[in-house]
């Protein structure tokens, strides 16, 4: 099936198999930040933005992205660095394997929620598993990032 998908601002037209997950499609376009951690839509490592909204790219077929905009961490380098610096200063990227998906969701949350409470942050990011950190350092990084954004 022929589709036209915009990945990080670049338009691609491809003939793809209808059962190709978006995850494998974006990786084939060199977006290697996008990781797979499970086969059951439970880990959140594969999170990308589809028209600006976070989705699990393992569970979305590439054909569903036809005519739409896909953004991965590669396309948000500047924002990734800005939040990533806070994460790094907390040591909240231990092995870093969950970081891209997690950061994609944090950035979406920062756009969507105003002044979220700790509880709202936990809820929003509940689908992003991390086995290394125990989540506390990530929460500290998010808090500091949100404060710094507010203070401009």
């Amino acid at each position, binding site marked *: 099936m022929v589709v036209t998908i915009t990945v990080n601002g670049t338009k691609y037209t491809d003939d793809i198999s209808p059962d190709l997950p978006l995850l494998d499609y974006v990786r084939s376009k060199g977006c290697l930040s996008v*990781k797979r951690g499970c086969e059951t839509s439970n880990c959140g490592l594969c999170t990308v933005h589809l028209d600006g909204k976070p989705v699990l790219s393992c569970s979305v077929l590439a054909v569903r992205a036809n005519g739409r905009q896909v953004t991965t961490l590669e396309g948000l380098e500047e924002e990734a660095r800005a939040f990533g610096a806070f994460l790094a200063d907390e040591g909240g990227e231990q*092995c870093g394997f969950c970081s891209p998906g997690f950061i994609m969701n944090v950035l979406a949350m920062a756009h969507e929620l105003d002044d979220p409470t700790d509880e709202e942050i936990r809820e929003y990011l509940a689908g992003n598993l991390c086995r290394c950190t125990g989540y506390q350092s990530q929460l500290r990084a998010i808090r500091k990032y949100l404060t710094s954004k507010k203070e401009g």
Partner: protein
Amino acid sequence: MAYVNAPVRKKDAMSLVTGKPVYVEDQIPKNALVVKLLRSPHANAFITSIDKTAAMKVPGVVCILTHEDAPKSRFTTAGQTYPEPSPYDRLILDRHLRCAGDPVAIVAAETAQAAERAVRMIKVKYDVREPLLDFRKAKDNPILVHPEDDFKALCPVGADNKRNLCSTDVFEIGDVEKELAACDVVCTRTYHTKANNQAMMETFRTFTYLDEYGRLTVVSSTQVPFHVRRILSNALEIKKSQIRVIKPRIGGGFGAKQSVVSELFPALVTMKTGRPASIIYTREESMTNGSPRHEMQMTVRVGADQSGVIRVIDLYALSNAGAYGDHGPTTIGLVSHKSLSLYGGLSAARFACDVVYTNTMGGGAYRGYGATQGIFAVEAAVSEIAAKLSMDPCEIREKNMVAEGQIMHTYYGEPCNSCALDRCMQKAKEMMQWNEKYPRKVLENGHIRSVGVAMAMQGSGISGVDIGSVEIRLNDDGFYTLLVGCTDMGTGCDTILSQMAADCLECDIDNIAVRGVDTDQSPYDTGSYASSTTYVTGMAVVKTCESLRKKIIEMGASMLGVSVDEVSFDGKRVYVIADENRSVTISEIGYASYEGHNHCLSASESHSSPVSPPPFMVGMAEIDLDPLTGEVNVIDYVGVVDCGTVINKNLARVQTEGGIVQGIGMALYEDIRYSERGTMQNNSFMQYKIPSRLDLNTIRVAFESSYEPTGPFGAKSIGELVINTPSPAIVDAIYNATGLWFDTLPVRAEDIALGLLKK
């Protein structure tokens, strides 16, 4: 000290948070074959025939390998120093399948789809046998997991494959029965801990190719590159000199990757076809055929006198090796050494154990490595005896805990040179407000708030075995290259060792370029396991820096035309003490060493420690328990750690938080279960629940440092210790809420609710 003890950002942090392609899968060559495995549906079976004709016809299939194509020398996949204590009980592909998911055939194809299709088209006939699944019935059972005659144990661990024994041991100090008889109270209970999956986010994965010299190159997500080289050589029957192993960044290990799991299959394909090959384990494969924590059953007898002095502990442990003995004989030792030794004044102690084979997934190394299981049993028993004596569980520990200066008779007779366990307890009580909260409060909604406590210890490397080697080179312009053979798996050791080097060489940390691990280029290191890296390899860094400083001073002095006693080195320059204006900079020395000399400046030292000083910890859980449903929420957890000098505050803290959360998972959720036929029932993150953000509230960590004289900058280890307190602390808190002792992990809501109903 500018960097040691500071919260230094990890050297690779920014590339990780911007998603750079630094992991195995990101670097697989485009033309690599995709490897998939046909796995056994049976827990105990013999292959009678395999027909691969139809599968070979699938377009894109390049090779299909079965037991007939694989080498016939038995080996172990446990990443341990040679001679490995784990028995040689495996083949890459065997006719005898000993657990569900054992590999039957290796398929390599141009695409994943072709490989998967071919896997489905291989026709296999099995002679299916009854599986042995209950480890309590394994010893001397007529069903033999390893009936083969070429089974062999390199070390005298008590292995006997004709009795399903992977190892067995016993030791006794003093007269246990006599002491028990003389005690005022004795508490006896049998505990059961389950197999747990490490569940690192990056599953097992490897790719292989032949390099320009025709040697097998293995790029793998591993904690033990040098052991991988040896194990592959054993398994593939090729010379070690023909193998090179490279570790890129890895997505977590926790011990799982201290075994060879995914490496053998693409390696065999590359050897047979000459082509690059890759394998990425699915989450399901990682769950069903990984290297989980050993399931154990432990019976503890603790005896104390009326005043709460603990006089004797007797411990028997039965461990389930599963189908293969990886790490079986060694994990079991830690069950006692790292639990009994928390108590300094024992007059008698005994430990006996059996490690048995069954037809379940083979076990491996998981953070804590037996200490976790032993500490759960002993700490829970100590809390119970405190309750019997109507004593605060903190008080009984304060009375009996090991102290600096004691000889630890149950810990290889090592002296306890550094121990701040008493301060950890004090601090934890303050942080938790223990005295106000103990034992419980009933809230208006009927929920019960209660607290519980446990202590823990671990080791720092394997004494007399582990080796860390380091090389540091001075380059032109005066920057250094630090070559290490230990494996950063997110734990930050590349950064931590750079911090130490920067302080020893008195330079900016950016002046240290660090590189690991490539077995062709890195100095030898046993690998990152057994909490060895900071302590063992760290000391090698300190020693190497001392040697290099000497050489820098010699070279500087000769450039200045004076003797070495007349100069000093401050990291930036070598100068004449009597006339500080006469100096050469480190940059000038670097350049000079590159020109017309016979000595490029480099130093390399190795370190091995005759002792393994334990780090210590006190953990306290505050829980909210709903007596109607039995649901437990850990609303606050306090961990106070003595890891000696803290090298990197951030990383040590995150290690502790992460370890505590894994421990909470073990206490309340995680449990590998099998069907009656021996297939795993919870083989995904849907069914095997690891803690998510919603399962946690606050975790608070503090450090109470002792100074370990044998460690670099006074440091001990931290990586494993931190997983050990949650299970016993939470079980203690549940008792303080309900008056019920739970001895089987995980403690489930329904068990608590049922227990309360029966009460």
